[in-house]
C-alpha cells in the first residue's frame, strides 16, 4: 500500500476501513498450490476495475515442484513495477513464512496458514500477524478430496474481503475461468471462495478499500507478455509458425497452435529448433512472414539458419524469451543476457533487426512492428523479451482491433521482371515476390545462402561480395536513421541518466520518480530498438554527467553489460557505464538507486 496513504498508527478498532491507492501482495507457497491462479484473478479484476496492475512470479524449474511465489501490485495510479516491498504476505507454509517475511515492509501484514505455520515471536512485533487455518477451513468447505486444490480460492475470498473487492465481478471471473469444465468444479471453486470471503477476520484491525481510479479511454485487457506477443503476431497477420517447446517460450507456441486454426493458420511443433526456424523460413519464403521462437539453448541452435535468412533476405520473426544462462542455466529465472546473441549470433557479418519490448502492452505492438519491419526490409527480426515480461500480468488499454489487424497474404499477380537482389535498389531495400508469381521475362529468382549476383546465382566476385555485403548493411542503416528518437523520462539534463531495455522499464521509471522525489537529479531513457540503434542518443547522453546502463546480465570481462558494450562501442564515451546483476530476479527500485549512487561515488573506472 502506497506508504503515504495507509493510515500509519497501529490502531485498535477492528472495523476500520482505510483508503489506499495501491497494494502489493505476495503469495508464497509451493508450485502446486495454484497461487498463480489467485494472482491471475486479482490481476484480471484490477483490469476490469480500470486499475493498473503488475505481477511477478517465480516458479521452480523441476516438475515435482518446490517453493513458488506470486506477487501482485494493484493500484489506482500508475503501476510501474511489481513492487520492491510487499504490504502483505500470504504464507502457506513455514518455509514460505520464513523465506519471504523480509520482503514485507515493516508494519505490513503477514497472513498465514495457521495449520502449517508456526509464528516466530521475534517477528510478531515488526509485522501484523493474521492467523487463518486456511487448509482446514478449505477442507471443511469442500472436502478433502480435491487434494490441495481449493486453498487458493479460499485465500482469494479472504483477500476479497480484506480489500473490499468487487464481489460480482470476481464471481463472474471465477465462473468464466471454469466454464467448459465439469460443473462440480465451478461449484467447488465458488464454495471455497465463499468460505474464505465469509471467514471472520476477527483479529484484523483494519480492512482496505482502493480509491476510485481515473476513468480511462476504452476498456482494459489483462494478460501476460507471452499472450500479448502471441496475439500481436496474429494481429500482424502471421498465419504460420514452427517451434520446439522450451520454457518460457512454450506458452507462445501453445497459444498460437491453439488459436491459429481459427484464422486458417497453422503452427507446427517440430523435431528441434533447427527444423523449426527452417520451416518458418520456408513458409516466409513461400510468401507470408512466419514466426519461430525459443529461449536459451534453442536460440543458439537457430543462428545458422538465421544467417541464411539474412543472406537470402527472407523476412522472419524470431522471438527470444530470455531466461537465465548460459547453457541450460536457470530456466525459470529472468535474465537479459541474450542481447549479444540476438545482435551478433551467427558466423560472418549478418546484420539483422533486434527489438526489445518494454511491457506487456508493448509485446503486442512490438510483434506487429517486427512483422512490418521484416516485410519492408526483407530481414529477420529478433524480438528479445524475457521471462519476467513473459509471465507477468498487466492490464492495458484494449487495442483498436480493426485498425491494428492486417492482412499480409502474398500478392501473386504476374510481374514483368524481377531481381531479388538489385544493386541499384534505393538504400538496399528491395521488395520480394513469392513463388507462384509468374514472371513474364521468364527469369526466375533463386534464394540462396551463397554470395550471389542480382538474380541470386552464386558468385565468387570480390566486387559483388563487397556490394552485397553493403546492401545488407545499408538497408538496416536506413531503418536506423528513420527510427524515432527515444523519449527521455524526466528532464533532459542532469546528473544521472539510467538507460534500460526490455522489462526493466517499470522499475527504472519508478527509480527516477523516487529519486526525483528525494531531490536527486535522475532521468531515464529506454531503448526499444536494439539494432539498429535509434538516432539521437548521443544528444541525450550529452545532457548528463553519468550514464548507467541498467541490465540484468553480467558485467563482463571489462565491467559493463551487453547493451552497454554496444553503446560504448558506438559512442566511445567513457561516461557510459554498466549497472548489472545476475541473480535471476527483477530489479528492485532501491537496488537501482543504491547501485547508481555507489557508481557515481566510485568515479570513472579504469577499464
Amino acid at each position: 500500500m502506497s506508504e503515504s496513504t495507509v493510515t500509519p498508527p497501529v490502531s485498535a478498532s477492528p472495523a476500520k476501513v482505510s483508503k489506499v491507492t495501491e497494494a502489493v501482495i505476495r503469495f508464497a507457497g509451493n508450485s502446486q498450490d495454484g497461487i498463480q491462479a489467485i494472482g491471475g484473478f486479482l490481476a484480471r479484476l484490477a483490469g476490469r476495475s480500470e486499475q493498473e496492475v503488475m505481477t511477478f512470479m517465480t516458479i521452480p524449474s523441476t516438475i515435482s515442484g518446490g517453493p513458488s511465489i506470486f506477487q501482485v501490485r494493484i493500484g489506482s495510479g500508475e503501476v510501474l513495477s511489481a513492487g520492491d516491498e510487499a504490504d502483505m504476505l500470504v504464507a502457506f507454509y513455514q518455509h514460505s513464512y520464513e523465506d519471504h517475511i523480509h520482503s514485507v515492509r515493516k508494519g505490513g501484514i503477514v497472513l498465514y496458514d495457521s495449520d502449517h505455520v508456526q509464528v516466530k515471536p521475534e517477528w510478531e512485533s515488526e509485522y501484523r500477524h493474521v492467523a487463518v487455518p486456511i487448509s482446514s477451513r478449505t477442507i471443511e468447505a469442500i472436502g478433502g478430496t480435491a487434494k490441495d486444490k481449493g486453498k487458493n480460492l479460499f485465500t482469494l475470498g479472504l483477500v476479497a474481503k480484506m480489500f473490499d473487492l468487487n464481489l460480482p465481478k470476481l464471481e463472474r471471473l471465477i465462473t468464466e475461468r471454469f466454464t467448459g469444465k465439469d460443473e462440480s468444479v465451478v461449484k467447488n471453486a465458488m464454495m471455497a471462495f465463499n468460505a474464505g470471503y465469509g471467514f471472520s477476520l476477527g483479529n484484523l484491525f483494519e480492512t482496505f478499500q482502493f480509491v476510485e481510479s481515473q476513468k480511462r479511454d476504452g476498456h482494459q485487457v489483462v494478460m501476460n507478455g507471452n499472450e500479448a506477443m502471441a496475439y500481436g503476431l496474429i494481429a500482424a497477420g502471421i498465419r504460420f509458425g514452427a517451434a520446439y517447446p522450451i520454457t518460457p517460450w512454450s506458452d507462445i507456441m501453445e497459444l498460437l497452435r491453439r488459436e491459429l486454426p481459427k484464422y486458417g493458420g497453422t503452427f507446427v511443433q517440430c523435431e528441434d529448433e533447427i527444423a523449426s526456424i527452417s520451416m518458418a523460413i520456408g513458409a516466409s519464403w513461400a510468401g507470408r512472414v512466419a514466426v519461430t521462437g525459443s529461449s536459451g539453448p534453442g536460440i543458439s541452435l537457430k543462428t545458422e539458419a538465421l544467417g541464411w535468412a539474412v543472406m537470402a533476405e527472407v523476412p522472419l520473426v524470431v522471438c527470444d524469451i530470455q531466461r537465465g544462462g548460459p547453457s541450460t542455466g536457470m530456466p525459470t529465472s529472468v535474465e537479459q543476457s541474450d542481447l549479444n546473441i540476438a545482435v551478433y549470433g551467427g558466423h560472418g557479418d549478418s546484420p539483422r533487426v533486434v527489438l526489445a519490448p518494454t511491457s506487456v502492452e508493448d509485446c503486442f505492438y512490438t510483434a506487429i512492428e517486427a512483422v512490418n519491419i521484416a516485410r519492408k526490409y526483407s530481414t529477420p527480426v529478433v524480438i528479445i523479451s524475457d521471462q519476467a515480461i513473459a509471465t507477468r500480468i498487466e492490464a492495458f488499454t484494449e487495442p483498436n482491433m480493426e485498425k491494428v489487424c492486417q492482412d499480409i497474404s502474398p500478392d501473386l499477380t504476374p510481374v514483368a521482371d524481377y531481381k531479388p537482389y538489385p544493386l541499384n535498389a534505393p538504400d538496399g531495400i528491395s521488395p520480394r515476390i513469392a513463388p507462384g508469381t509468374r514472371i513474364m521475362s521468364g527469369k526466375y529468382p533463386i534464394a540462396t545462402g551463397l554470395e550471389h549476383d542480382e538474380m541470386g546465382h552464386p558468385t565468387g566476385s570480390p566486387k559483388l561480395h563487397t556490394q552485397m555485403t553493403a546492401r545488407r548493411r545499408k538497408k538496416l542503416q536506413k531503418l536506423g536513421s528513420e527510427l524515432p528518437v527515444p523519449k527521455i523520462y524526466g528532464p533532459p539534463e542532469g546528473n544521472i541518466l539510467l538507460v534500460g531495455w526490455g522489462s526493466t522499464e517499470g522499475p527504472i521509471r519508478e527509480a527516477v520518480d523516487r529519486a526525483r522525489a528525494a531531490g536527486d537529479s535522475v532521468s531515464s531513457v529506454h531503448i526499444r530498438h536494439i539494432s539498429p540503434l535509434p538516432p539521437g542518443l548521443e544528444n541525450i547522453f550529452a545532457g548528463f554527467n553519468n550514464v548507467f546502463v541498467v541490465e540484468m546480465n553480467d558485467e563482463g570481462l571489462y565491467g559493463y553489460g551487453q547493451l552497454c558494450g554496444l553503446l560504448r562501442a558506438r559512442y566511445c564515451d567513457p561516461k557510459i557505464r554498466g549497472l548489472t546483476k545476475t541473480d535471476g530476479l527483477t530489479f528492485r527500485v532501491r537496488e537501482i538507486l543504491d547501485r547508481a549512487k555507489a557508481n557515481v561515488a566510485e568515479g570513472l573506472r579504469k577499464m
Partner: protein
Amino acid sequence: MSETIVQAPARGNITAVPAIELPGAERKPITKKDISADHPTWCPGCGDFSVLALYFKLMEKRKMLHEKITTIAGIGCSSRFPYFVQAHGAHYIHGRSLPFSSGVSLTRPDLHVFVFGGDGDAFSIGGNHVNHTARKNIKMTYVIMDNWVYGLTKKQTSPTSPLGFKSKTDTWGAMDQPINPMKQLISAGATFVARATHTNPNHLLQMMEAAMDHDGFSVIECLSECVEFYEGAFDSSNPRKGGKFELVPATHDVTDENAAYALAAAPFPGHFGIFYKNNRPTKNANEAKINAAAMAKVAGKKDWEILQATFNRLK
C-alpha cells in the same frame, strides 16, 4: 504505445503486369529451354546431369505451370540443382532442406515442391529431418542423389559409403556400417519409397512421375555417380558396365512393410522401383481438417473480429 509501426508495402516498386493470356485460356506448355538456367557446374560425366535432364522432362511431360514449380535443395554438389532450373527456387543450408520445404508445402498447396540433395545432406546432418518429415507425411517429392561420398567437400566418407571405401577421412577404408536408405525411410514412415539410378533414365522418369503423383512424402533414392571421387561405384548396377539392373519383382506388394524390409536387405545392386507405398493422410490434410473445424466456429467473422472476441474474454 508502440512508437513506430512501419507500414510495409506488399510489393514495393515491382511492376505488376496483367497476365498475358486471358484467364482460363490454355498456356503454351513449358519447354526444356524455358526451365534451363545456368550451365551446370558439375564435373563432366557426373550422374547429377541425368537427374536434372529428367526433371526437365518431367516438367515438360506433365505440362507444369512455370511459376508453380519450386525447386529446393540443401548443400552439396547435387544440391546446386536449383541454380540450373529456371524457376522459383531456394538453395538452403546443409541438411535442412526438408523442414524448409515443409514450410512451403504446408502454406502453399498450389505449389509443386521438389527437393533435391545428396546422401550426406539427407542421411548425415539431415537424417533426423528425413525421419520426421516422413512420420508427418508432409506432401513433397524428395530425390536423394546418392553418390556414396561427399562430393562438394572432396571425398570424405558419407553415411552411405560402403565398408572399405577409401576416402580422405578413412584412408584405410570406411569402417562404420553405412545406413540403409530404404530401411530408414520405411521404418520412419515415409509413404512412398523408391530406388532408381541415373543410368536408367526411363525408369528414373517413371519413378519421378509416380512420386509426384503420390499425395504425401515421396522419396526416391537415386544412385548418381560421382566420377571425380567415386568412379565406378555403381558399375555393378549398370548393364552397360557389365552390371545388373533388376526391377522390384512384379510380385512385390508395395503396401507390405515387411516385404519392403526384406527387399531392402538385398546386397548391392539390389532392386530398383517402388519398395513401399501407403496412403495415410498427409499432415497437410490433417491440418486442413483442424482448420476447417476451427473456422466453421467463427464462420463469417473477419480476422479482427475473431481476435476481438478473444480479447473480450481477457477483460
